[in-house]
């Protein structure tokens, strides 16, 4: 999406911007779900830009809002690295777990996944199907079992199996449901009795609007999110909310999902992402 192309053209063409041009730019920024705060900041940065290097300056303005934290996976060197995947219903947790598992497997490390979504009908089977497809073992409990118990067993088994990674899928939950968030905290708590959790990844659907910020805030407060997986970014929405979250909450976007097959998954590269926005 050529978010800034119009602006660049305008800045290169003339020095002064008519108020209507600024209004139009604001609309474009808002339309990408960047949110009112980030939009205002970027507009201010754009106003300061001088003609020639406008593109560069805007890229820098946007980059300066990004986190300084590393986007590399956090791992437990030489031991078991546990990754918990959390998020709101329908944001793509199970698919992301499968993609991440295949990614890890392709890198030569060993991985098992735990089917912690014991609530939704056929969620366990969904993950098992993925497991068969990508050749990764899926540890699961009974339907409607306590997800914390499933995760605990999985952590014990993964430790005994001497694998490098354990990915734990969880049931989708709306962040404003206190009891479900408590349940999630319990999952994290009991797993950490066995082994530390290296990484908590939150899935953010690229089509999500400003509510994504509330999701990130509350999940973060609950289970200390260490990274974001931006899912479904192959649609018409580009997930500006994820940039807004990263900018406001200092949580790095680590992975980006771009399609339905397990190969459609890559590490988030901010430079090329921003370049994509700016051209």
């Amino acid at each position, binding site marked *: 999406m050529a978010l800034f192309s119009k602006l660049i053209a305008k800045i290169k063409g003339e020095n002064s911007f008519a108020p209507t041009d600024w209004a139009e730019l604001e609309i474009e920024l808002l339309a990408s779900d960047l949110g009112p705060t980030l939009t205002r900041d970027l507009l201010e940065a754009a106003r300061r830009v001088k003609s020639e290097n406008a593109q560069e300056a805007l890229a820098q303005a946007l980059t300066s809002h990004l986190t300084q934290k590393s986007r590399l996976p956090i791992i437990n060197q030489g031991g078991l690295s546990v990754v918990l995947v959390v998020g709101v219903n329908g944001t793509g947790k199970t698919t992301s777990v499968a993609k991440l598992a295949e990614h890890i497997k392709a890198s030569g490390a060993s991985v098992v996944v735990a089917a912690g979504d014991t609530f939704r009908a056929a969620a366990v089977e969904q993950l098992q199907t993925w497991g068969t497809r990508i050749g990764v073992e899926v540890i699961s409990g009974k339907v409607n079992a306590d997800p914390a118990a499933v995760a605990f067993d999985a952590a014990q088994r993964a430790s005994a199996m001497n694998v490098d990674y354990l990915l734990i899928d969880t049931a989708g939950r709306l962040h404003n449901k206190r009891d479900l968030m408590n349940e999630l905290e319990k999952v994290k708590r009991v797993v950490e009795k066995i082994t530390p959790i290296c990484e908590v990844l939150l899935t953010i659907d690229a089509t999500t609007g400003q*509510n994504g910020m509330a999701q990130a805030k509350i999940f973060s407060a609950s289970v200390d999110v260490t990274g974001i997986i931006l899912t479904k970014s192959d649609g018409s929405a580009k997930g500006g909310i994820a940039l807004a979250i990263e900018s406001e909450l200092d949580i790095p976007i680590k992975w980006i999902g771009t399609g339905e097959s397990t190969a459609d998954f890559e590490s988030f590269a901010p430079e090329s992402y921003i370049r994509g926005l700016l051209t």
Partner: protein
Amino acid sequence: MFDSLTSRFGATFSSLRSRGKISHSDLDASCSQIRQALLESDVALEVVESFVAEIAQKSMSALATIQSGTNQANAIFEIVNSSLIEILGGSARRVRFAKNPPTVIMLAGLQGAGKTTLAGKLAKFYADQGNTPLLVACDLQRPNAVTQLQLLGASINVPVFCPEAGDGVGDPVKVAQEGITFAKAKQYNMVIVDTAGRLGVDSELMSQACEIRDALQPDEILFVVDSMIGQDAVRTSQAFLDGVGFDGVVLTKLDGDARGGAALSIATLTKRPIMFASTGEKLSDFDIFYPDRMASRILGMGDVATLAEQAKAAFDGDTSKKLEAKFASGEDFTLGDFLDQLSAMSKMGSMSKLLGMLPGNAAMKKQIENFDDGEIVRTKAIVESMTPHERADPKVLNGSRRSRIALGSGRKVSEVNTLVDRFSAAQKMMRQVRSGGMPAGMGAMAMPAMAPIRPQSAPKKKSKSGNPAKRAIEESQ
């Protein structure tokens, strides 16, 4: 949801009401506040602009004819309310039933919008009304979407037509065709077709959706959309409208705290009504979308109608009848009955969700958000720690009994005292009400149960007006 919108509108109107006479500049200021609130709620800009312009214009002409400031504010409020209702789809539209059954409903939407769960909810909704729905599994893409639908169907005793196991295998168009033939042969009067999630920009999958549509000849195509969707709602809903087309919209995950601007955007831009709202993970968390109720909610007028309906459904026949009989025979309402009511209330779902439907200003909404649902659990624990004798006659509760109860329930003695005091007050009130000759049907609804679970920060017991839940229910009778 819509909470922030609600508080914005609340502030705007209370400032308007405080004016002696509303000037054009007051009106402008209010309009720009409304504009900002809508923008922050993910409403598409073009929708915001046209909405605000309409309100400004209508209000301007209203101001010319009405003199006093309060009446003017009320008139503007009415204008905003009716404009919201109009945008949200006018009066609620129901599904059009086919003259020759089966009535065919096809679901379409993005991945993760909630189509499969919704298919189950729709099937339950119509089965409960005496229809004989058949679910057809045309999502052959997502792993185990078919299994999910089968499990949902089994849980509500609705048959699922699924000749293909899915997981990327099989032709959804063929399944759709066969599903219709099957339904006609077996005389199901309704067919609900789940389809795979697809992106608006995916022309290949969109044309597949068209083929499914042509095979089904559906009476209704419902566009299923996540209420948390952002500005992309505009592009996506337009893409589906142009691609496969749809007759109505279903908003899912409305129990979240998304401000739901998408509802306004989609309804305005596509001119299609929002027909259903999905509000929770249980298959019963589903209802017809009522634009007027939603507008009331946005404007902070509450949603008493829904609350009353939920109460009626949760207080099952037996409990209500038992209470009514008790009430009529002049027997006292006991802590045992109170326990029954508490259980019924937990069945109605989260207290904060229920209280959120009540009318009230933004300040009260804030308090409701902080409402601790654990209060019901704790109150129940206290009552459950009493012997049946004590529940029937709280007067026997002396100091040592109270400390035993406190120990048993893990609460403080002071909390036991508060509960017993409030209960006695409620019991007394019930007696007065009875001697005042209130209709017997009120038995279950008077809900003295609400008293002890009032938020702790609320002032201690006082007249009935201090209990908004009860007051609202009385008013709605």
